[in-house]
């Protein structure tokens, strides 16, 4: 098997959401569903002293993430029908919509907010790594869309060369699912274990 992985360059990403919207157009997704989302992490304070002058230790950084096509996916483990499955050739995790009963366990189990039940379609939906594009020698639509060239996709061996595995906040410990997501962190990025680094744009990503 050739396991594929995403790469995210946190030093380049500016949080513009072109990745997210290109995916929504290509996959024809409507309001309420996004396969890739952009999280804003902001912490610190900007204060004004009595003399009217500012001090700041504010830190803010974006994280663009879709499905991490984990080695040990929690979504496939909890799926009661086997609809959620990991491809033997590419390691990409996707939903067999004919088997899915829309129970939403995958949505609840995934620590990366990837699968969601599309109630209009009646089954779970998520990033499939643009498997058909991959087969045609292309990269996922989000990767080829990025104006800042902050995303990449390739074999896990390639992606590992310039990134560490899912190591920044607000991501959970990588040991849970062994995600295929490699990151070059920005100066601002906090380690995955830092509980103070929270997502501040829940409305945009839930």
């Amino acid at each position: 098997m050739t396991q594929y992985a995403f790469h995210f360059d946190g030093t380049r990403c500016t949080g513009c959401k072109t990745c997210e919207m290109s995916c929504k157009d290509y996959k024809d997704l409507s309001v309420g569903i996004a396969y890739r989302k952009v999280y804003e992490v902001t912490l610190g304070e900007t204060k004004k002293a009595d003399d009217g002058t500012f001090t700041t230790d504010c830190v803010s950084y974006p994280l663009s993430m879709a499905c991490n096509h984990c080695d040990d996916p929690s979504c496939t483990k909890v799926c009661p029908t086997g609809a959620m499955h990991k491809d033997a050739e590419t390691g990409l995790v996707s939903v067999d919509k004919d088997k899915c009963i829309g129970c939403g366990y995958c949505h609840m189990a995934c620590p990366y907010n990837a699968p969601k039940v599309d109630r209009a379609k009646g089954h779970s939906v998520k990033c499939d790594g643009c498997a058909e594009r991959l087969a045609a020698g292309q990269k996922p639509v989000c990767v080829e869309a990025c104006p800042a060239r902050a995303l990449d996709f390739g074999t896990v061996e390639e992606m590992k060369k310039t990134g560490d595995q899912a190591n920044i906040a607000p991501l959970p410990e990588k040991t849970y699912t062994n995600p295929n997501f490699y990151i070059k962190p920005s100066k601002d990025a906090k380690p995955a274990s830092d509980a103070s680094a929270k997502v501040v744009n829940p409305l945009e990503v839930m």
Partner: protein
Amino acid sequence: MLDTKLSRRTFLKTTGALGALAAAGGSVAAADSLFGADVPAALAETEETTTWGHCAINCPGRCALKFHVKDDEVTWVDTHTSPDAGFDDPQARACLRGRSYRRWMNSPDRINYPMKRVGARGEGKYERISWDEAIDTAASKLKEVIEKHGNEAVYVPYATGVSATTARPFNRFLNLVGGFLNRYGDYSTAQITAITPYMYGAKGGSGSSLSSGEDAKLILCFGSSPTETRQGGLTTHYDWVHMRERTPAKIYIIDPRLNDSAMGHSEEWLPINPGTDAALVAALGHELIKNGQTDEDFLHTYCVGYDEETMPEAHKGKNLSYKDYIMGTGYDKVEKTPEWAAPITGISAERIRSLADEIATTKPLYVVQGWGPQRRSNGEWAAWSIMALPCLVGQVGLPGTSNGCREARNSPTLQSLPAGTNPIKDSISCFVWTDAIEHGEDMGAKDWGVRNTDKLKSNIKYMINYAGNCLTNQHSDINKAHEILSDESKCEFILGIDTVMCDSMNYSDIVLPDLFRFEQHSQIATGSDWGYVITGTPATTPKFERKSAYEMASMMAERFGVKDKFTEGKTEEQWIRELYDKSREKDPKLPSYEEMQEMGVYTRAYPHTVALQKFREDPAGNPLVTPSGKIEIFSEKLLKDTEGWKLTEGDTLAGMDTLPGIPAYIPEWEGVESTTKEHPLMLSGFHYRGRIHSSWGFIPELKEVNPQEAWINPADAEPRGIKHGDKVQVHNDRGKIELLAKVTPRVVPGTVAVSQGAWWDGDKKSGKDGVDKGGSINTLTTQRPSPLAKGNPQHTNICDVKRA
């Protein structure tokens, strides 16, 4: 062929008798028995094709769009990209908005037919009519206004929804029928455009390219967010990310917000109070002068008005130099020490001193400004001050420097549809047209900056608003604009042309349905560090009764008997080709038109551009187009041009009755020094990811992930009981808007930041007592123009915020 693998869900989704019949009887057999041997055309598999097009909205990105089309419908929108592209490879990748075009072009709100207004102006009630009736009405009303009031009563308001080489056909038409009232300046750059020629001359108004920042050691960005203002993959978003990765320079972004360009690199943020850049520069100048760190050779060789020695003869001995202003020996006689600037700017005296020291000791220094600092009541002087800073240390015209203007843009040059000559020379600032509707005949040169005439000859009576939302939404004081426009006795007729009914369109008397540029032949040249040209063919046939603006203007011309003069016998595509071929004669490196169509996107590399390089090398041989041929830090011409101007309180420094001829700090009308008990906070706008100005402002998928928010610091939110995500009202004397609170340390205390361009959504009958639930900042901005440019000071506001 039809899919024979029928799933349970597909079956359930199949509705109607034919579907059930096909499923039960076997699809081919059933279809055969009903319709004959051939598969009906509607069911035949059609090939997907791709066409190139370009974004045409008011963003210099104008990125490439690659439309995937099947059955004359766009299935998805790709861009100029490839799987193996490296970081350095130029690809004009569309931003999130470009990738959402399908939602706009297929929107149920798309205008399909000509319409006439059947309700009150602004009410938005329309009825479908024929093209003949629409054009007859618009043309006969135009004839009537011209006969009664003259061509000076006809106006084409600032409107930027469509850009291409042939995107201005209405100006050409109007010039053939006697012309129209001109305008100068624009809503993006009014103040900096007005001031820059005084300092750098008519041709010196551009900075170095962003790529030149790669050669710098220190980069100061005043009020700039290259990623948010131009988001595409071969415009400043990409250029910024690319330059930052390549440069060894330390970067500071001086801004009231930690804007998106600093995300991930938050140490770059130097927070400042809005509207106070000139005060910061004055205090930095004070330190440089005091410590003997100014480049006196440069200032004495290349500049006028820095100190007494370089003042123009007529102004010597009066303590009118910039140095006199800074050191407190002239003007307001206040020494501009860091302690003076600290409470104004919000930057501590200690930090101003350390920054001055960095500026003095780190070379090359690259100073650049966005257009935020200038879109203010004191914007002309803010922009001028930022330009003066690199001059103080001689960091102009050398590799790795810039001149303090906005970064340069490179682009191949393409000719545009000739507009002809406007017989009318009278001109107003683009921002004061609402006044010209109300009392144009009272407006003159010395009070309203009217040009080429002492007084306007007529109030504005007829307007053609093509692809513009500047009548209300993107103008200022929406409630006041509504009052003026809704009175049909004032501006008697408005012809509106667009793809959807934005708020401004609701004032049209006749509405015409436009095509996107990618639904017709189109070409555009643009660029930033890289230059590029995009050549598009129609993605689909025109749907419903939509027509191109060129066709509409031709029809208007026909009613005036000037159609042949207008078209010169050419279709729009023929014009595009002819204009391109002419451009190619001057630039033979450009490929043929056919090749351009085939490749879609043509890119061209440019070297790092350095502003004023030739002037620096040889100031006598390559003088600037200023009266002295030098950089003018004191402008005698500005004083002369504005002699006798009627000023309003706050337009100039306290105690002066003329505008200052140096880049002084003028406190804003509504700013850090003039908040009130009732309105204790400043309110400033910014560009948002999900829109360019108001374009795309109605697309649900974009609104969902780019909610309209008021950025407010926890220090201001907490005492008001406001929590992150609460619905709040931002209000001042001009109105109220309702939106969500983004409680964040990314904005300085004392300032609320609201992204500009959200679609106004309220009840116009209630006027300023009503609530704009769209959250358009222009419900709260003023129509008072800035002192010199008579431009829009839309970031200069005070307000308060409460929970809704």
